[in-house]
């Protein structure tokens, strides 16, 4: 049943983000039909060449890790606020 799978994916995405110390209060997370949606505000913490938290490389890696969760078909990022730090 897709709804059970979606709620299971949702739980795993939450845990993945918690393990990465992402501030969950400022994020919205959703799952429908195996598509994971991340929205809200994502606070970045610098790093060189986009490797720091929230940098381009970090986001690409995050997308890959979410895609690796069983039954995830697509990942959509729609952050309305990205606060960037400069090193």
């Amino acid at each position: 049943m897709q709804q059970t799978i979606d709620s299971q994916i949702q739980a795993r995405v939450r845990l993945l983000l918690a393990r990465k110390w992402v501030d969950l209060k400022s994020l919205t997370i959703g799952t429908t039909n195996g598509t994971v949606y991340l929205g809200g505000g994502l606070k970045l913490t610098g790093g060189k060449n986009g490797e720091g938290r929230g940098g381009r490389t970090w986001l690409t890696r995050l997308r890959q890790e979410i895609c690796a969760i069983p039954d995830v078909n697509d990942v959509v990022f729609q952050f309305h606020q990205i606060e960037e730090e400069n090193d």
Partner: protein
Amino acid sequence: MSEGQAAQSIELVVDPWSEATHELERDRDAHPGFADVRNQLGMIYLEDSRPQDALREFQAALAKNPAYSLAKFHYLVAKRIHEGVLEAEEWDAENIIQQVDEPQASLWTSWYLSQSGDVRGSVEVLDRLARTEPRFAAVAHYHRAIRSISLGDPTAVESALGQVSECHPVYRRILAERGWTGSQAGRSIASWTRALLGEWSDPQTWCPSTSPVFEVLGTRCAREGALEQARGFYEDAFLRDGAESLHQLRISRLALANGDEDEAVQALRRAIEVDPTSVEARIALGWEYQSQGYHDEALVQFEVAARLQPGYPDVQYNLGLLYEAHGRARDARTCYERALETNGKYFQARASLAQLLIGSGDFEGALGALRPLERQGIRSADLLVQKAEAHMALGELEAAIRELERAVELNPNYPRTYYILGQAYRKQGWKRKAQEAWKQHLERTRSWREQQPHLEEGEWRP
């Protein structure tokens, strides 16, 4: 050690004080009007022996929000440390403690009395707090121990710590780890200072309300993978504020980061036990249960969280997902609608609501729910597929195929697009195209082995 190894070792060194300070300074520069950011930055300056900088930030916080009681108190602390000034009129005029709850009211009053020379009054306030509010007894006795350090009275320190240990197991454990063994007559004040306050704090000017600084430092270390260092800072925060539910939440995240889900669950259960109204702990425990397959237990946690905070859209949305998983579509719909009432831009709730409406046969409703998402700029193959499903059910095949082709363009690897596209082609009477689309679906879906024998009753096979 090779050059590469040396570089790696250097990267692992964490200086949480300077990193946290720089992060808050950047926050302040980006949002100079945020009083809470200025207050937080002031706190870290205060703890880092930079009272002049701290004073400037607290003044700025108060200029933005003159009623900000925590910043008012910190302003008085910084002024006392930096200028040596403590005026009774200012404390009275500010009426600070009437604006805060216990234990802050007593802890702040005790600080003020000790700084103004009324040591006995300072200790009496803490004793009264311990007597009248047993849940704050440990933190009250702990602060009494710090006051006794500043008075240079090791016997009083030992007595206060004995009481702390008696009334709270977490304090007892942390103090034991820091060298408290029960009876330690003869231990010097300098040794107590190091054990309880660390290297950086001066017991004479010790501020009772800066536990958030230590939480920030702990989280900074944890993000860098320095979990033991993080735990130490979290314990510093707990010793100062005695807020066990928050402490257990932090410990649960450390346990998760360490891959120990059992410890995480244990800490979250304890967080709820000491504060059954902690919505944050209930949500975290709910997801832990869900991920471990305890679906009914997860649902209970979310239902309680929703009762505690019905206007919190995140709780409503996630409860809706769990209701759907339990086959309770009507309850799920109510939750999604509540989430959207509070936050109309909660696009995840809108996407789930639309899918639920499709499942219940309300195709016009689904299209109505999906319409605002394009205006919000949400681009996803699944949303286009949902629209296509609704159009198809309403007999609008051309519109459906148009949406599906857009979905393929947006994400050529999304398997469901091809499945629905196959159905749309079949309805058009285009059998070959339908078979090709279903084949594409099977090629992209991870569960193709399970789906292959049953998909469209074998009709996908040429």
